[in-house]
């Protein structure tokens, strides 16, 4: 680990820290109906939206109406994205002539759910699958909308804590519109221009055919990338325009662009912790959440960076320069880009899974076992380390509820959080969200580890004749790219990422089959809605309660003590739930790697 590597991590963190207060106060003012410095320019667009959509700005919604609006919106978004993909062959802006043959119904289903739920899991490679129109009017739109919806829900949940003796949590349509018009759009335009200056492409040209210096033919994919790239990071979506995502030089051409992309991931989630503090009238509450996130973030980077720089002892035997020097990065460079090296790659892998972004600037599948454990565990604990836009805040608030509940049990008092009594209903809803996501990850990963389908068979002439529709390669484990514990990690990561609405992958696994597309689709729905709706329900119940004044018996929920309790809760819940699964994947692989063990696929696929 180099001084320079630490400097990059420190500078990144300081930028996020510096932006937290201005972003947070801006959002608090915006969502409490105040005027911001952008109102003179954008207010007309906002009122135009209400007029077209038919929304009365001052109408308050109960939690059920708020949730119903979100669901209705998600259904139409799903239908739009599905239809645009299947119809892309007859629609314009398609210079490569990609059509519905490139997007099977199960793939379109998976992708539509994926982008509507802010997951951006990709069973496909963009440059060979989707037209420019599909990328823009289907995927870019959902990058905005799923992010804005996440912010809206986080604000509604914060209102549940901030308000008292009311039914209303705000208005979903108004929150969605404000998040889009005042936050996501302006920042995306600025970020897209900056990225383009760094080298990100933005055009509608057909792919460029070149004759290389040595005379080979190379086809270079083009497209409107910068506009999608900006919101992909800012909305913590993470779905790449290209298959290689932010490792692709057209998406992320320089280390400076890379730094901006990581900052874009964290600024809204970090700012929202401050927004929460302002809304509940005690900024210390927000900073405590920020502090707990910061400690967990730094711990994750430390482990990931250390593991990646240490590299792979088995490969060191080949005479590779594994230590960093002034002229090369050393460490585990498989799957990493030269321009980023080890530090900026490990930092990106940690940031993208702390948040529910899921963009990658290197191949996670090729991370060392412990380097890969960090992203996996980050997602499994619910992506609450700053977390996704909105999703991170309501996720960490869920853990705060659980933490005060546990503390309350220990001292025998009714738990309170920011002046609200936490009672049966809230704790039940928090547990429902935790159990539903754990169930989705573990059950589906378990199923795919053992599910059998008819494999391809051959007739007398050796032609394949019969295979399973559900999974043409045969058993669900036949889709893996790696044997041994790393193969299990590929499956575990897939369902973890889908349920956590992250979208990054151990990308070797081929998930573009009906079995994986459908089960991963179900996991994404469970992870989004079975998490978010219970939280809205809890917020609805909290909003109706009176605030109780704090007494000498109240557990203060600000300061280092509570931050420690909060971190302990996150790690404990995550470890208790997922340790057995992690032991079978990255943990055992770590020890096997240290012993020099290598795995190859046996003639029969794993598990058959």
């Amino acid at each position, binding site marked *: 680990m180099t001084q320079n590597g630490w400097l990059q991590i420190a500078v990144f963190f300081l930028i996020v820290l510096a932006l937290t207060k201005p972003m947070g106060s801006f959002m608090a003012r915006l969502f409490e109906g105040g005027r911001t410095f952008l109102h003179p320019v954008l207010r007309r667009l906002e009122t135009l939206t209400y007029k077209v959509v038919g929304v009365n700005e001052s109408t308050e919604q109960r939690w059920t109406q708020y949730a119903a609006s979100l669901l209705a919106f998600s259904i139409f978004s799903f239908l739009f994205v599905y239809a645009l993909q299947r119809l892309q062959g007859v629609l314009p802006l398609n210079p490569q002539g990609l059509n519905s043959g490139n997007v099977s119904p199960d793939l379109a289903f998976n992708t539509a759910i994926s982008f509507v739920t802010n997951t951006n899991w990709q069973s496909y490679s963009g440059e060979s699958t989707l037209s420019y129109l599909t990328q823009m009017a289907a995927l870019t739109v959902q990058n905005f909308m799923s992010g804005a919806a996440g912010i809206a829900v986080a604000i509604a949940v914060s209102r549940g804590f901030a308000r008292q003796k009311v039914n209303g949590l705000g208005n979903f349509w108004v929150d969605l519109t404000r998040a889009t018009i005042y936050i996501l759009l302006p920042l995306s335009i600025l970020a897209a221009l900056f990225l383009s200056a760094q080298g990100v492409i933005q055009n509608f040209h057909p792919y460029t055919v070149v004759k290389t210096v040595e005379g080979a033919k190379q086809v*270079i994919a083009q497209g409107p990338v910068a506009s999608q790239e900006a919101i992909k990071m800012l909305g913590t979506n993470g779905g790449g325009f290209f298959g290689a995502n932010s490792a692709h030089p057209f998406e992320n051409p320089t280390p400076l662009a890379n730094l901006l992309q990581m900052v874009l991931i964290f600024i809204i989630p970090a700012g929202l912790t401050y927004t929460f503090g302002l809304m509940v009238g005690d900024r210390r509450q927000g900073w405590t959440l920020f502090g707990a996130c910061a400690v967990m973030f730094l711990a994750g980077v430390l482990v990931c960076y250390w593991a990646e720089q240490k590299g792979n002892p088995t490969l060191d035997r080949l005479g590779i320069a594994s230590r960093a020097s002034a002229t090369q990065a050393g460490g585990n460079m498989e799957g990493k880009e030269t321009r980023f090296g080890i530090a900026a790659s490990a930092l990106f892998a940690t940031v993208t899974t702390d948040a529910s972004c899921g963009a990658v600037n290197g191949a996670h599948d090729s991370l060392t076992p412990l380097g890969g454990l960090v992203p996996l565990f980050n997602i499994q604990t619910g992506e609450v380390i700053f977390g996704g836009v909105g999703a991170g805040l309501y996720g960490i608030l869920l853990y705060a509820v659980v933490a005060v509940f546990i503390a309350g049990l220990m001292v025998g008092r009714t738990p309170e959080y920011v002046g609200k009594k936490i009672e049966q209903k809230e704790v039940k809803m928090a547990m429902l969200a935790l159990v539903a996501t754990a169930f989705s990850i573990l059950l589906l990963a378990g199923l795919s580890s053992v599910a059998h389908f008819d494999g391809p068979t051959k007739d007398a002439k050796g032609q394949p004749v019969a295979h399973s529709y559900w999974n043409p390669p045969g058993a669900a484990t036949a889709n893996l790219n790696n044997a041994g514990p790393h193969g299990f990690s590929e499956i575990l990561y897939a369902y973890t990422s889908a349920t956590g609405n992250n979208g990054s992958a151990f990308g070797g696994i081929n998930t573009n089959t009906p079995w994986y597309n459908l089960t991963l689709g179900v996991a994404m729905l469970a992870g989004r809605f079975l998490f978010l709706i219970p939280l809205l329900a809890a917020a609805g119940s909290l909003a109706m309660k009176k605030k109780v004044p704090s007494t000498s018996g109240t557990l203060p929920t600000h300061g280092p003590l509570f931050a420690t309790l909060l971190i302990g809760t996150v790690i404990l819940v995550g470890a208790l739930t997922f340790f057995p699964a992690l032991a079978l994947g990255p943990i055992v692989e770590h020890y096997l790697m240290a012993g020099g063990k290598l795995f190859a696929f046996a003639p029969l696929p794993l598990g058959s």
Partner: protein
Amino acid sequence: MLPQLAPALRMTVFMTVLTGLVYPGLVTGACQLLFRRQANGSLIARNGEVIGSALIGQNFTKPDYFHPRPSAAGNDGYDATASQGSNLGPTNQKLYDRMKAAAEQFRKENPSFQGPIPADALTASGSGLDPEISVANADAQAARVAQARHTSLEDVERLIAGATRGRDLGFLGEPRVNVLELNLALDRELNARK
């Protein structure tokens, strides 16, 4: 949920137009106006013909050119319509075998090079399109290129130094050498003596 269906549909249509058509259209216009070269792919032309992009790696195999990193994009590597890494995990036999073969080839191609091989010379990048190699990797190949071009090592090293890009702002990322730009400089500067 029924009363919310109509606003939901109208909102979907409105936002599709705003964020799916107006926004990318606006950004395209601005980028084409302000950053035309970058927005169109940082393409490089020689003698009036486009021969590649400064940002997209292409394969070089001849001894008188610097070689890029191994690539997992497409079947033959450096397929710029199929970007991807190898996705081989650290305990994969295939990864070990591939790197062993690459290490042997590297030593065979660069017989005068001693010491540990720079990691980037044997590993596939995440995109499969990495346009750059580490400075150590370029240095390790310099003697071979100089010999193949019948020129002095100093000439080649001077060109490497010219094509080296330091860390962004002095601390971001890693120093690196753009392979296509370096090879074009070789052809331009050292052709006479070839």
